[in-house]
């Protein structure tokens, strides 16, 4: 049986969603840490450093995983994993930051450590999505550059949208935790949609195969 490939438009849409959510969490990240480490430029420095490191690790792992039987189910798991690993930011942020605040007096290193504990895992999982989605979109070597460009375009546009929407509007309309729950829900939805489409396509393929056999017989 040939591997089922997702429609390109689905991959493009979820790539947008992942880019959007990365920046939503990052913009809120500073807000979440400010009560413990302040709003100084070094807190932003810690946060951005950890996001960049997490994404780079995610790109590496996602790229590696894409060479082994690339499939929509694994792709969906990235979204679900990112959603689940973001939940501690909502539920345990204080419990995580308080001991760090007590142990480390310098808010620079305090915020660096807190950023690692809070954001590293979900962000690196979100980072895996980009290279993996390139693999899902590419049918031939010829088109790989074109597809990679398209996906970077879409996910970065998503990031721009997430940054703007969060900092201009969401913080005005909602609590920080409400926004984060929203991001979790959207990531879960994206994962579920991928699984659903994959299931429907598999079913159709199976039916087609069955009817094919029937015709042959």
């Amino acid at each position: 049986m040939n591997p089922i490939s997702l429609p390109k438009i689905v991959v493009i849409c979820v790539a947008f969603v992942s880019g959007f959510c990365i920046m939503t969490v990052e913009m809120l990240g500073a807000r979440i840490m400010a009560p413990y480490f302040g709003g100084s430029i070094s807190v932003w420095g810690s946060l951005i450093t950890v996001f960049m490191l997490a994404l780079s690790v995610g790109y590496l792992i996602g790229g590696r995983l894409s060479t082994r039987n690339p499939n929509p189910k694994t792709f969906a798991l990235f979204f679900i994993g990112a959603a689940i690993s973001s939940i501690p930011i909502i539920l345990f942020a204080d419990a995580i930051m308080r001991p760090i605040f007590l142990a480390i007096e310098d808010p620079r290193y305090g915020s660096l450590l807190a950023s690692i504990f809070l954001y590293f895992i979900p962000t690196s999982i979100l980072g895996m999505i980009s290279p993996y989605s390139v693999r899902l979109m590419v049918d031939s070597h010829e088109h790989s550059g074109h597809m990679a460009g398209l996906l970077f375009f879409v996910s970065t546009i998503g990031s721009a949208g997430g940054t703007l929407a969060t900092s201009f509007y969401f913080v005005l309309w909602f609590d920080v935790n409400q926004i984060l729950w929203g991001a979790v829900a959207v990531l879960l939805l994206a994962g579920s949609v991928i699984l659903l489409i994959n299931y429907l396509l598999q079913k159709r393929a199976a039916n087609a195969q069955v009817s094919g056999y029937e015709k042959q017989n």
Partner: protein
Amino acid sequence: MKNKIRLLFSFCGLMAVTLTLTAAEVIHEEKSLYRDINVVQTGDRRCLIFNVHRGDRNQTCVDVNNRDELIFSYTKMSFAGLLLTPQPKAILVAGLGGGTLPLAFNDLFPDALIDVVEVDQAVVNVAKEFFFFEENANMRVAVNDARVFVKRAGILGKKYDYIILDAFGGDYIPEHLLTQEFLEEVKQIMTDDAVLVANTFSTSRFYDHESVTYQRVFGEFFNFKLPTSGNRMIITQLDSLPPRGNLITRAQSLAPSLEKYGVPLLEYPARLSTRVDWDMSRRVLTDQYAPANLLQDN
């Protein structure tokens, strides 16, 4: 007739401002990660200016030949807390600026311990180099975020009996210094007889949110506004506020010692109001919801 005179006065004022502006000389520029800081001198008056590019905003000014005299209304207004706590022993000032405020307190209460917390090292450098600010055995500066400083002071069990929140430099409002949670942390480091003096904003929509937040944490507070200043001060304490009669008596006994700083303390009691002049239905600012910078323009 009265209007004409007023017009004439404002014209003269405008002329004076124009003249001084043309004669102003930038004597120092300090780059920092937060803002550009310029030190500008006009005759004897030396000013610290933030946000040079977006409309000048004098942060602190000193008269180099008469350093005791405080120039800005809002700096003088910070002394109104003395009407509630006349003999402070431990003072916390959040936001250094040019350092004129802590200097005056140190001069007035040489035995009081003064902690100043300032997030920007560049501001400390400029205050020391150009505004005669000096640390001494009783007055120290911590380069730190005020939220972090206050939280840690609370854990260490430090207490202050005079707290001045003046950490709002330039246009940007540090949102984490306006929330209910922050004010609760400030409460933790206040002695029973402490006074809190917060230099805050009077822009419309934000004013409502801020007032509601202070009210939630402290109950009633004195709202202190002067026609000569766009700032408003929130002055409050843990206990219920004293009657106006007490304020007047205190003002009378303290006024002579404040004369050399140019603080018209006798005028202040009549200006301290507990009247609610804000929209009480506005949302309390919290760590979860504090879009202060988005509210200020509306």
